[in-house]
């Protein structure tokens, strides 16, 4: 898929630079930090610093570095439920640096904790809820955040007469369960949860 030269380059703030590229028929909005731009183009910048071409050159260099990543990201993001359409089949992608996806690790952990406690188990007190594992998947587009907590489960005791017959509640065992949440690394969206052993 062909990736065009950057267009509509703007500075969103002192730190953020926005630009657009066409990836095949799709217009993609990219947001990167100025540091990432500088980092990617330090050699180019050394030559151009005094010639006023620094900004444009930096953006072009970053865009060409990002071509492969943009293509992969678009393909993957489009398969995710709720990909953020911004009109004309465009897709907004935020790349805060060249190597790190949009959501910082602690932001992803906070987001995942909020989702598990408030959205997935709003009526349950999750006993000893703890962060157990943090991973960025191989594609770099999903945070995999694992939490552990205790749950009580009623068990049936087959060797004894029914507890109900004695007016006793069924015995309970406490066991620790582990849930892995997938959080979109660019969008912060909750993409799913799986139980792991």
């Amino acid at each position, binding site marked *: 898929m062909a990736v065009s030269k950057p267009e509509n380059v703007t500075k969103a703030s002192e730190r953020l630079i926005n630009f657009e590229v066409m990836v095949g028929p799709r217009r993609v909005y990219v947001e990167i930090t100025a540091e990432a731009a500088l980092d990617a183009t330090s050699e180019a910048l050394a030559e151009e610093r005094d010639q006023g071409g620094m900004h444009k050159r930096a953006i072009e260099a970053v865009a060409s570095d990002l071509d492969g990543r943009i293509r992969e990201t678009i393909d993957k993001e489009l398969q995710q439920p709720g990909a953020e359409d911004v009109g004309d089949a465009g897709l907004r992608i935020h790349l805060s*640096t060249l190597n*790190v996806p949009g959501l910082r*690790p602690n932001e992803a952990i*906070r987001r995942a904790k909020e989702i598990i406690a408030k959205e997935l188990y709003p009526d349950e007190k999750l006993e000893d809820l*703890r962060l*157990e*594992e*943090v*991973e960025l998947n191989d594609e*770099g587009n999903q945070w995999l955040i694992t939490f552990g907590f205790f749950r009580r489960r009623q068990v049936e005791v087959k060797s004894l007469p029914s507890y109900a017959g004695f007016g006793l509640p069924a015995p309970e065992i406490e066991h620790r369960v582990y849930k892995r949440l997938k959080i979109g690394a660019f969008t912060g969206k909750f993409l799913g949860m799986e139980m792991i052993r």
Partner: protein
Amino acid sequence: MNEYILPGPVKELFKPHRRRRLLLDTNVLLLLILAKIDATQVGRGSLSKYEYSDFLALHLICENFSALLTTPHILTEVCHLGSKDVEGPKRTMMYELLQRHSAPEQSISLSVLGLRSLSRVGVADSVIEALCDRDTLLISDDRELCGIVARRGNHVVNFNHVRDILLGS
């Protein structure tokens, strides 16, 4: 770096272990070494899942232990992963720091490790599992390895529990 203070609950978590030898698992040792060389590595490459505050906490935790322990397998993994992230003089610094860090290296012959353990967690983690004893504290962020060591009645702290405390403080 010296201005950073460990939150009380993190200090409490490690208080009972001060006299033990400290064994850092690969990812945690990599964080300690690479972030010391170049703080901008945190949040990128092999350290993409960490924040700088994680490094600061780890650094202060390690200062409380006088006896460190490592294994050739951990050192090999750290060198392998670290070499992907840093090159040139920084890579040389990585080796220098590893030389300074690596207190006694210990290993165990594969022949005495259980085949079940080897096939389940691999060589490096099987050696860690076998080396952990009453006098050793393991810090790892591998949930499975932490569980295995804890179930054997040995001392382990999941570094993610520390991160959880840091986030809440």
